[in-house]
């Protein structure tokens, strides 16, 4: 779910956590593949689309991942 409040200067963007169903509010428009954490359940989530904003559980770290 995404929501853009009209008639105000502040854009409100929200999405639903797929883990706990809580509402996540974004201070700014997220990018696709951005990682966010649900403030309610702490799940690590990935933005899978931006219009509307949808979230999925972030992929597990793979063995060859690193910096």
């Amino acid at each position, binding site marked *: 779910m995404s929501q853009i409040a009209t008639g105000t200067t502040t854009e409100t963007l929200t999405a639903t956590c797929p883990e706990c169903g809580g509402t996540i509010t974004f201070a700014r428009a997220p990018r696709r593949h*951005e990682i966010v954490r649900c403030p309610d359940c702490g799940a690590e989530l990935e933005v899978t689309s931006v219009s509307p904003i949808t979230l999925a559980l972030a992929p597990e770290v793979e063995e060859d*991942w690193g910096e």
Partner: protein
Amino acid sequence: MRLTLLHTRIRTEERLLLDELERRGIAAELVHADEAVLDLTESFDARNEPHVLLDRCLSHTKALAIVRAFESRGAICMNPSKVTRTCGDKLLTTLALTDADVPTPRTVAAFSADGAIQAADELGYPVVIKPCTGSWGRMVGRLSDRDALEAVLEHKLALGGPQHGVIYLQEMINKRERDIRAFVVGGRTIAAIVRHSEHWITNTARGGRAEGLPVSAELDDICRRASNAVGGGEHSLLAVDLFEDPDRGLLVCEVNSTMEFRNSIETTGVDIPARIVDHLVEAANASAVVA
């Protein structure tokens, strides 16, 4: 300049880089590694425009393949594939550092359980075991005695893939609950932090606490040498991790080719993403002049 940002996730680091690019009016094409489809037989991209690829991919295996393909199309890749290959494999990193006489902890590779036990007996306990590929302190173990080593080896060789058949063992350094991370951009050491932790693994990804560290001439020198050793140079963006050995001084532990820096901007006062973007632009401009 044409800029491609290769990524797996848009984390704080990627967001900061994209914000910096946006501030300067530089458009970046975002390529998620899982979504890349590369025709390897496609002809050379002859567009008369510098093409820079910034590698922020988390997967070493995928990054290496994609970066190499972009290089073959004439893109300036940061880091170059030779750097990615070396930094993504601790065994290759150790060999590169040793070949260049850069001080590093004593390290032995073994290829069987018996060989690993022999190696550990020579290094002495406690001994550190690390996977050749991986990061963030994952699957790194401090083994206090032969019993512990045998247990880890049994699991590693039974459950791991073929890559676990290369057993990387390192002497335990008394690092006094701290280590150093230095950021090297284009061969210049631009900032450094000290990471403190009561845990012997000091990675900030594992809860280590960071504070800024002035870049001394000694630190700059060893970091430049480490950067050169892994094939870095004018196109390298590297984070060098170092221990302070009470007797031998600074030792380079590893060199990271897709550095994380979110905890190091405020602590050092250095705008690391801005310095990276500065470097991307400089490299593109230099390339355009040469062309």
